[in-house]
C-alpha cells in the first residue's frame, strides 16, 4: 500500500513538474544504445550496422521515451498541460478574438459571481446561531403583525413545546461621552433572547433574567461593531459604566459578531424589563418574538400548541381584536425577507446574460473552427487521434473560460462597491464577500461555460475530413453549422427579449410611481428626528413642555419660515389600530393610522381643511381630547353624515385603560402617508400636546435654505432646551419621497444594466452571423448580380435573413417573457406583468436593432463586384 501511494505521489509530481526527468531518460537511453552497439560490434557487425541493430533492439528512441513518460507520470495530465501551453500560444496569435471572448466572459461570469456572493451570504451561509434549526420567528394575525406584550407573556407562561421564548422591541438611546452625544439604535430584549438566538459573547457575558426585571440595576450589552468603533475593541470596557440617556449603565458584555453579521442593525442591547402592567396589555402589537422549539419536539407540534393558546387569548380578550392566527417562519426567512425573491430574479437575469455571452463565443468559435480546418487536418494526418484533437480544442476553451473567470472575479469584487453604495437596500446588511464558496462557484461557472461554448465547435472540428480538407485547401467553409449558428442567435435574441421585458416593466412602474399624487407638499420642506431620552417617560408634562420649547426655539431660527412637529412623517408606516365610534362600540371599526402633530403641521404640509378646524394651540393637556381625521376615515366611519362633534376611540384595549374618547373637531384632506405604493390611508391626527407617549418626533421646517445650513443652529437651540435630546437624520422631503420611489430601484438598475448588456451581446451575435452569411455567399451574390439582380434585391436577401432570425427570436422571447414576468409582479406598480405596451416596444426595439445589425453586412453585399467575386 505504501509503495502504491508513493508511486501515485511521484507520478503526480512528475505530471505537474515535467521536464526534470526527461534529460535523465535521454541520457539513460543513450548509454543503453552505446552499450548495445558495443555488444553488436563485438559480435562482428560493422559500426553503422551495429548502430542500427542497437536501435532496432531497443524499439525506437521516441517510443521508449514516451513509454517511460507514460509510466512515470499521468499521461492525461501531461497531455492537458501541453495542450494548455499550446492553447495559450494559439490564443496569443489571435488577440482580437481572445480579447473579445475573455471580455464577454468576464462580464458574464463577473455578474454571476457577484450575484452569487449575495445569494451565498443571504441564503446559503450557515447562520451564526447555535440552534438556528429549532428557532421560529413568530408573528400574530393573518397579516403578520408584531406580538402584543400580554400575548407574549401568556405564550411564555402557557406553552410547553418551546424551550424558551425571547422578544425584543426596537428602541433608541442617547449615548454621551464628554460633550459628545450619539444617537444609538437599541433593542430592548428579554434575557431569554440570548438562549433562543444563542452565540457565545465576544467579551464578558449577556444579562440574566434577574437583570431583566423592572427596577433591576441598569445594564447594557454592547454590539460587536459599537465595541470596535467606539471603544476600539478594548476588553476593559466590560465592567465599566457608560452614559445612556443620561444615566449610567453597567456594561456586562459584548455581543458576538455573529449578531451583526446576521443583519441585526443594533448598537446596544438593553433588558426589556417587561413589568406586570405591560404584560397585561393584549392590544398593542410591538414585540418581535423568537421561540426555541424544545429538543425532541417539532415546529408543527409547537405551532399547534401556540395556536391553541392564541385562540384561548382571543376569547379571553375579545376587545384586543385578535384573529387567533399565529404565523411562524424560520430565522433565515425572518432575516432575508423578500430579498429571496430579489435574488432569484437577479440570478435568473445574470444567468441569461451569461448564456447570451456563451452563445456569442460559440458562434465565434464555430467561425474560427472553419478557418482552422487545415490546422486540425494536419494534426490528424500526423497521427493525433480524434479524442486528442477534441480534448485539445476543449482545453483551449477552458483556457479562455478560466481567463474570463479570473477577470470576472475581479469585476465581481468591484461590483461590491456598487452594492455598498446602494445603501437603501437590505442587501447591504448581508456582508457579501469573495470567499472559498464564491471562488468555487466562479470556477465551476468557468468550467461549465467552457463545455457549453466549446463542445459543439470542438466536436465539429474534430470530425474534419482530413483528405478533402487538405486537398482543396479547405478555405471555403461549408454551410454545415449554419443551422447551429442561426439557432444560437435566435436563443440570444429570445433571452435578450426576456431581460428587456423585465427591465421595461420595472421602468414603467418607476414612471407610474413618479406620477402618484402625494397629497402633501415637499417644496422647501426639510425634516429631522428629535428624540428625548427614553428613561424620562415618567413625567408627561415635562415631555410636552420640552417639545413646545424646542418648537418655539426652532421657529425663531433665522431662515426658518415655519416649523411643526409630528410623531411620524408621511411614507413611514404610522401607528395602525382599530377605531370605534362612541355609541357603536359593539361594531368593530376599521383599522386606521394614527399620528400626533402640532397645530402648524397641516398648513406646512399643504393639507386642506375639508370641515371644522385643524389642530389648535388650545388643544393641550387638561383640555378636552380632540382629533382631526382625514376625509377617508370620515367617510369610512360616518358615511355622508357629518363627523364633527362625534367622539371616537382607537385601540379600544388601550382606551379601557386610559378612558379616552377623542372628539372629532375637523376633517382634513388625505395624503399618501403609508408609502407611495399604498392606497390613501384612513388617518387621524391627535394634538402632540395631548399625546405625551411620543418621545421621538419629526421636526418639519419650511426654509429656502439648504437644510445642512440650518442644522447647526437647530441643534444648538435643541441642546439649549435639553442637552440630552438628540437631533439626527436631517433630509429634505424631496429626498424622503425619492427614497420611497427608488426603494425598488436597486433591482431596476441591475435589470436595466443586464438587459442592455444582453441587447448589445445579442446585436453583436446577429451582426456576426449575418456578416458570416454574406462572406459565405460572395460567390452566389456575384452570380446573382451578374445575371441582373438589382442592388435592392441583394440587400433584401441579406435583410430577410436578419429579419427572419429577429422575428423567430423575438417571438420565442415574448412567449418566455410572458411566462416569466409573473416573478416580477410584487415589484410592479401601476402596470400588469403582461403589459402589452412594454412587450410590443421591446419586440419592436429588438427587431429594429437586429435589422440595423444586418444592414452593415447587407451594404457590403450590395457592393459585391461580380467580376472579382466570380474570379475568386
Amino acid at each position, binding site marked *: 500500500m505504501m*509503495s502504491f501511494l508513493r508511486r501515485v505521489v511521484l507520478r503526480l509530481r512528475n505530471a505537474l513538474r515535467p521536464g526534470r526527468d526527461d534529460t535523465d531518460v535521454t*541520457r539513460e*537511453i543513450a*548509454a543503453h544504445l552505446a552499450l*548495445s552497439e*558495443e555488444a553488436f560490434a563485438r559480435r562482428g557487425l560493422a559500426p553503422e550496422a551495429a548502430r542500427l541493430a542497437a536501435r532496432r*533492439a531497443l524499439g525506437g528512441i521516441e517510443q521508449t521515451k514516451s*513509454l517511460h513518460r*507514460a*509510466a512515470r507520470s499521468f499521461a492525461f495530465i501531461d497531455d492537458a498541460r501541453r495542450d494548455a501551453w499550446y492553447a495559450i500560444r494559439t490564443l496569443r496569435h489571435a488577440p482580437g478574438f481572445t480579447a473579445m471572448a475573455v471580455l464577454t466572459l468576464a462580464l458574464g461570469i463577473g455578474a454571476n459571481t457577484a450575484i452569487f456572493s449575495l445569494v451565498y451570504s443571504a441564503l446559503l451561509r450557515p447562520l451564526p446561531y447555535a440552534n438556528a434549526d429549532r428557532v421560529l420567528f413568530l408573528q400574530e394575525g393573518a397579516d403578520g403583525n408584531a406580538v402584543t406584550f400580554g400575548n407574549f407573556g401568556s405564550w411564555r407562561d402557557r406553552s410547553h413545546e418551546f424551550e424558551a421564548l425571547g422578544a425584543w422591541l426596537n428602541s433608541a438611546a442617547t449615548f454621551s461621552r464628554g460633550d459628545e452625544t450619539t444617537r444609538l439604535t437599541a433593542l430592548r430584549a428579554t434575557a431569554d433572547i440570548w438562549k433562543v438566538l444563542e452565540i457565545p459573547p465576544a467579551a464578558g457575558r449577556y444579562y440574566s433574567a434577574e437583570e431583566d426585571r423592572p427596577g433591576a440595576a441598569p445594564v447594557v450589552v454592547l454590539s460587536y461593531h459599537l465595541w470596535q468603533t467606539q471603544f476600539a475593541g478594548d476588553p476593559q470596557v466590560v465592567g465599566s459604566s457608560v452614559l445612556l440617556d443620561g444615566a449610567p449603565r453597567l456594561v456586562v458584555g459584548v455581543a458576538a459578531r455573529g449578531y451583526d453579521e446576521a443583519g441585526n442593525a443594533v448598537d446596544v442591547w438593553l433588558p426589556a424589563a417587561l413589568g406586570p402592567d405591560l404584560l397585561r396589555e393584549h392590544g398593542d402589537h410591538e414585540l418581535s418574538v423568537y421561540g426555541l422549539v424544545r429538543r425532541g419536539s417539532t415546529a408543527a407540534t409547537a405551532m399547534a400548541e401556540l395556536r391553541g393558546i392564541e385562540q384561548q387569548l382571543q376569547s379571553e380578550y375579545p376587545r384586543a381584536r385578535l384573529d387567533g392566527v399565529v404565523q411562524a417562519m424560520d430565522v433565515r426567512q425572518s432575516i432575508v425577507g423578500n430579498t429571496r425573491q430579489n435574488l432569484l430574479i437577479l440570478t435568473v437575469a445574470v444567468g441569461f446574460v451569461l448564456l447570451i455571452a456563451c452563445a456569442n463565443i460559440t458562434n465565434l468559435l464555430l467561425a474560427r473552427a472553419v478557418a482552422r480546418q487545415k490546422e486540425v487536418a494536419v494534426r490528424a494526418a500526423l497521427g493525433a487521434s480524434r479524442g486528442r484533437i477534441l480534448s485539445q480544442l476543449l482545453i483551449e476553451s477552458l483556457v479562455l473560460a478560466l481567463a474570463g473567470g479570473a477577470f470576472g472575479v475581479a469585476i465581481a469584487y468591484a461590483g461590491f462597491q456598487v452594492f455598498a453604495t446602494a445603501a437603501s437596500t437590505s442587501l447591504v446588511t448581508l456582508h457579501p464577500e469573495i470567499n472559498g464558496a464564491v471562488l468555487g462557484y466562479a470556477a465551476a461557472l468557468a468550467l461549465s461555460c467552457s463545455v457549453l461554448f466549446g463542445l459543439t465547435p470542438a466536436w465539429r472540428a474534430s470530425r474534419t475530413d482530413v483528405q478533402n480538407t487538405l486537398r482543396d485547401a479547405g478555405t471555403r467553409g461549408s454551410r454545415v453549422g449554419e443551422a447551429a449558428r442561426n439557432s444560437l442567435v435566435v436563443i440570444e435574441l429570445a433571452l435578450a427579449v426576456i431581460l428587456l421585458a423585465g427591465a421595461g416593466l420595472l421602468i414603467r412602474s418607476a414612471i407610474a410611481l413618479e406620477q402618484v399624487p402625494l397629497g402633501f407638499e415637499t417644496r422647501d420642506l426639510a425634516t429631522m428626528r428629535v428624540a428625548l431620552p427614553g428613561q424620562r417617560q415618567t413625567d408627561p408634562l415635562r415631555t410636552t413642555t420640552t417639545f413646545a420649547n424646542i418648537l418655539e426655539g426652532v421657529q425663531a431660527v433665522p431662515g426658518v419660515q415655519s416649523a411643526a412637529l409630528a410623531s411620524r412623517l408621511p411614507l413611514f408606516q404610522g401607528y395602525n389600530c382599530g377605531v370605534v365610534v362612541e355609541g357603536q362600540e359593539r361594531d368593530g371599526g376599521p383599522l386606521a393610522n394614527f399620528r400626533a402633530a402640532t397645530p402648524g403641521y397641516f398648513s406646512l404640509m399643504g393639507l386642506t381643511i375639508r370641515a371644522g378646524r385643524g389642530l389648535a394651540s388650545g388643544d393641550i393637556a387638561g383640555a378636552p381630547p380632540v382629533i382631526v381625521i382625514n376625509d377617508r376615515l370620515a367617510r369610512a366611519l360616518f358615511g355622508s353624515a357629518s363627523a364633527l362633534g362625534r367622539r371616537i376611540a382607537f385601540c379600544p384595549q388601550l382606551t379601557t385603560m386610559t378612558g379616552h374618547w377623542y372628539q372629532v373637531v375637523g376633517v382634513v384632506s388625505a395624503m399618501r402617508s403609508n408609502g407611495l405604493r399604498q392606497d390613501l390611508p384612513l388617518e387621524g391626527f391627535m394634538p402632540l400636546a395631548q399625546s405625551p407617549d411620543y418621545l421621538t418626533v419629526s421636526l418639519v421646517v419650511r426654509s429656502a435654505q439648504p437644510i445642512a445650513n440650518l442644522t447647526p443652529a437647530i441643534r444648538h437651540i435643541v441642546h439649549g432646551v435639553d442637552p440630552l435630546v438628540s437631533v439626527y437624520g436631517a433630509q429634505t422631503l424631496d429626498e424622503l419621497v425619492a427614497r420611497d420611489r427608488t426603494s425598488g430601484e436597486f433591482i431596476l438598475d441591475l435589470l436595466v444594466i443586464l438587459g442592455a448588456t444582453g441587447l448589445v451581446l445579442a446585436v453583436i451575435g446577429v451582426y456576426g452571423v449575418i456578416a458570416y452569411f454574406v462572406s459565405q455567399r460572395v460567390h452566389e451574390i456575384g452570380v446573382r448580380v451578374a445575371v441582373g439582380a438589382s442592388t435592392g434585391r441583394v440587400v433584401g436577401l441579406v435583410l430577410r435573413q436578419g429579419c427572419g432570425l429577429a422575428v423567430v427570436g423575438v417571438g420565442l422571447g415574448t412567449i418566455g417573457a410572458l411566462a416569466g414576468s409573473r416573478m416580477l409582479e410584487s415589484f410592479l406598480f401601476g402596470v400588469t406583468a403582461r403589459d402589452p405596451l412594454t412587450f410590443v416596444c421591446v419586440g419592436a426595439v429588438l427587431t429594429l436593432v437586429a435589422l440595423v445589425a444586418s444592414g452593415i453586412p447587407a451594404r457590403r453585399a450590395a457592393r459585391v463586384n461580380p467580376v472579382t467575386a466570380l474570379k475568386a
Partner: protein
Amino acid sequence: MPSEGGNSRIVLLQGTLDLIVLRALTTMGPQHAYALADRLERVVEPSLRLNQGTLYPALVRLEQKGWIKGEWQRTESGREAKVYAITKAGVRGLQKETERWRRLSGLVEKLLLGDTP
C-alpha cells in the same frame, strides 16, 4: 498503447516483467538496463522477444515504488550507465509478489485442468 500482433507472441501479463526484473536483480546483483535486457533475451525463449525499450516502464514503476534504486556508475569498459539495485523493500516485495504469482498460476492451472473433459 496496445502491442501489435498479439497472437503470435506471448503477451506479458502486467506485472510479470516487474517480477522478472526483481528476480534478475536478486540473483545477478546490481545491473544496468542494457544488461537486464540482454539477460532477458538470453534466458527467455526467443518467442518472448521484446523490444528492449519495454523494460523501461517496469524500471520506472519499480523505482517509484521504492523497490529498486538506480545510480549512475561507470562500467568496466569505462562507459557510464544507470545501475539498478534491489532495495530491502524490493526484497520483501519480490517475496510477496512471487507468492502471489504462485497462487495465481496454481489456481489457473487447476481451473484449466478442471475444464478438460
